[in-house]
């Protein structure tokens, strides 16, 4: 999405190219065309386009991809300041 760019250099997306078999699944499931597969290897073509949805990591058959998104929820973050990470919780079932 060219018109919509978010913050740069924040994604936790990691690709282990050595383990990659070039199956192309990551390129298929990514909703932002972050990956490119050429010559039997995937590579990250648009790192800052990644929204950390995790589709690639969940579906890589050789677990060559990892993503560790934060929670990204204001209510949760505010709670970590008061209650600490262990006691903080999300907004409840109707929240997200």
């Amino acid at each position, binding site marked *: 999405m060219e018109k*919509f*760019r*978010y*913050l740069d250099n924040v*994604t936790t997306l990691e690709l282990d190219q050595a383990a990659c078999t070039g199956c192309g699944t990551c390129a*298929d499931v990514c*909703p932002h065309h972050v990956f490119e597969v050429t010559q039997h290897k995937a590579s990250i073509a648009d790192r800052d386009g*990644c929204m950390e949805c995790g589709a690639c990591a969940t579906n890589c058959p050789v677990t060559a991809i990892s993503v560790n998104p*934060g929670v990204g929820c204001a209510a949760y973050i505010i709670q970590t300041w008061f209650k600490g990470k262990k006691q903080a919780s999300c907004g409840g079932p109707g929240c*997200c």
Partner: protein
Amino acid sequence: MATQELKEICCDSGGTSRNPDGLELLPVHNQESVDDVCCGPPAGPASSEHERPGYDLCPFVESFKQTPVGAVPKVKTALTPGDRFNTFKVRLGLNRDQYKVAPGLYCLGDATETSPVLVTANYKLTFDNLRKELSGLAVWILVLDTRGINVWCAAGKKTFSTQEVIQRVKQTRLGEVVRHKKLILPQLSATGVSAKLVHRGCDFKVIWGPIRATDIKAFLQSDMRAERDMRMVTFTLPERLVLIPVELYFLRKYLLWILLASFFLSGIGTDLFSIQMAWRRGLIIFTGCLLGILAGAVAAPLLLPWLPLRAFALKGLITGLVLAITMLLGLGHMVDLIESITLILLIVTISSYLAMNFTGSTPYTSPSGVEKEMRVAIPIQAGAMLLVPIGWVAASFIF
């Protein structure tokens, strides 16, 4: 007992009664006598043969198809005015937690054992969105129990999950209904579903369908090939627009408190409490709050791609600033310097916070990025919000 005597007993006592043996009579459903009623207008139509005790027949079901696993409901593709009205209501936020269809197997068109299987969520908006694009097709629709949540959110919450797909395939005995072993899943469910583990768990192969239901027909007709555009998510103006009403709906419970606080804080002054000041100044600051909401929850989402700066808290700051300055220009001498500064702080802070919250509704902001901007923005917003009541009350003592 003669029909005439039965009729007399039924009609006299409203439908059920006791016969001379003391046993309760069941209402008689006698086809031949429908036109020949003893009293009142003719009886209404008989119940559908598809109705079952304890179950309601869904209006979107047109008939039932007999399959090796029993009767499977065949659904209509056309949405009714009722469906559209309910879509409108849930878009506003009304009753959207209970807007579901029963999970399980459905069919559409003349589905056979070779027809494709489309998997979807049991949020009725999702279900309607899917079936309305399938006219002329013959497919099976496997509805998962995503607790009434749409595909992508459910995938993120792991209710549209590998486990749920496997479980639903087994529970519906899908393997006995179709001869092929393929499931077409919406691409956005890939967040929660591992194709490899689904295959291992129920022997069905996952094919990733397009993101949007509107592309399914073309996808199926081109032998399951997705164009590049079908695999890219969008965030057009109409797509952003439909997300706004529910955000406003969530704010409704705060409005009363904001109104009360506005009047209470505004009345405090050198006379201890003045109702005239409470009214005049209260209206001003309450309007400021409303403008903050307009700037952050309406303007920022609508103008999203055209607002400069990447962080949403900053985009909200910009829209808030524009509306704040506009308000001050309109108020002129009705507010003094301290009140003006306080109003700017108020509108900009509310707008910044609400715009930042909108990140949760977009298809492109990463949680890591949102956390990063929130860790900076929230303390500033909190600090600013503390200054607002102080400034507003102080202003009535200072000038």
